[in-house]
């Protein structure tokens, strides 16, 4: 359940952002989550609801933007899609892949009132 730790980290970023902007409350939080990141989205929603109780972000809705996984394939010398770590290059079958997108776990925006 490291999603609880992630939710606590999110809440901190959200509350800091809300306070910096003199907000009375947070209505929504936008997250960017990579398909290859170590986040279980359903668990994160559950934990976020739990940790935001009594905070500025209580009741805020979570909008999750998913970034697809992409990797640089060394043998092909090009970028290829990567659904999960351990998968082979869809073009040449090699595992010599360097992830270039899809491991994000970011709070991108909040909606405050």
């Amino acid at each position, binding site marked *: 359940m490291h999603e609880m730790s992630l939710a606590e980290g999110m809440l901190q970023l959200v509350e800091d952002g809300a306070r910096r902007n003199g907000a009375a409350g947070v209505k929504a939080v936008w997250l960017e989550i990579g398909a290859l990141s*170590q986040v279980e989205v359903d668990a994160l929603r559950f934990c976020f609801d739990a940790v935001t109780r009594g905070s500025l972000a209580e009741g805020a809705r979570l909008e999750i933007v998913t970034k697809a996984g992409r990797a640089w394939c060394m043998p092909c010398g090009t970028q290829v899609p990567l659904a999960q770590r351990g998968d082979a290059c869809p073009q040449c079958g090699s595992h010599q892949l360097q992830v270039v997108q899809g491991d994000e776990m*970011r709070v991108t925006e909040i*909606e405050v009132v």
Partner: protein
Amino acid sequence: MCVTCGCGSDQNSVEGESMHSHEHRHADGTTHAHPHEHGQDQGHEHGHEHEHEHEHEDAHGHTHDAESGQWHQHGDGRWHRHDHGDAATAALGAAHAPGLAASRRVQIEQDILAKNDAIAAANRQRLADRGIFALNLVSSPGSGKTTLLVKTIEALHGRLQAAVIEGDQQTSRDADRIRATGAPAIQINTGKGCHLDADMVRRALDQLDPAEGSLLLVENVGNLVCPAAFDLGEAHKVVILSVTEGEDKPLKYPDMFHAADLLLINKTDLLPYVDFDVDAAIAYARRVRPGIEVMRVSATTGDGFEAWLAWLVRGVAAARARRDAGVEALRRRVAELEAALGRGA
């Protein structure tokens, strides 16, 4: 998977379960997801109604139903109903509900783990300044981490000083085992937590104060999932896989093997009695982490220990050399400044 909308659960799936996460793709290529539940097997041939909320600032090409206001149709012909919320109301202007207080969107653009990573960076600097070589040992429970550490510390006796930070949910049994070797050890009990984080290690470092130029071994909570995400400030993650486990664990838990720089295959003395394909395990590990270094060891018999101990000694020597180079550079800079002051005087 929905036959109509093509959506599917992304990471977790439970056979026979109808709850799934539904992903929308907007015109600009971004997607957002929210969970919903299907009743019986309806095959999505219906209008697929569910509630969600989203912004209207980015163009994603749908039209509103003038009758209900909340219903709208996406470019692909699907209908949705949702509340627009204040921001969308503000964005749409008076057409929806004039007079409501407008909310604002504020850019944050920060990693969720930013705080942990900042503390980890401070830990790493603190260790570097003292020439300490720190390793984060990760594995599933029962891989033999603590026995490996005990044997390692005993074998290094007289060659290297080692200190240990032990992470477990409960008890100080592991730290007690380490302290029995004479090495300093601090136990962190994570309580309900499933991993060590950088702040726990920072607090443990305050208590432990490992010696300059020593080896610091951090034994993480036995868990092949959560510790992968949390940088503690270590030089390397070392993943331990014992031959009593399945050789396909690198494929089942790719995040952890991807995060590691060294794989120790432990309990090799048991290979004659178990069905474990070492070559396959190594091949699987290199699928998720190309180039990962691999060593085969038995903490019980000491087989393979020379290579492991030599790796540790090299790591400590490099950490000391970096510290000395830093100190030397600082000395030169001070001498330069003093010379400049002397010229000025």
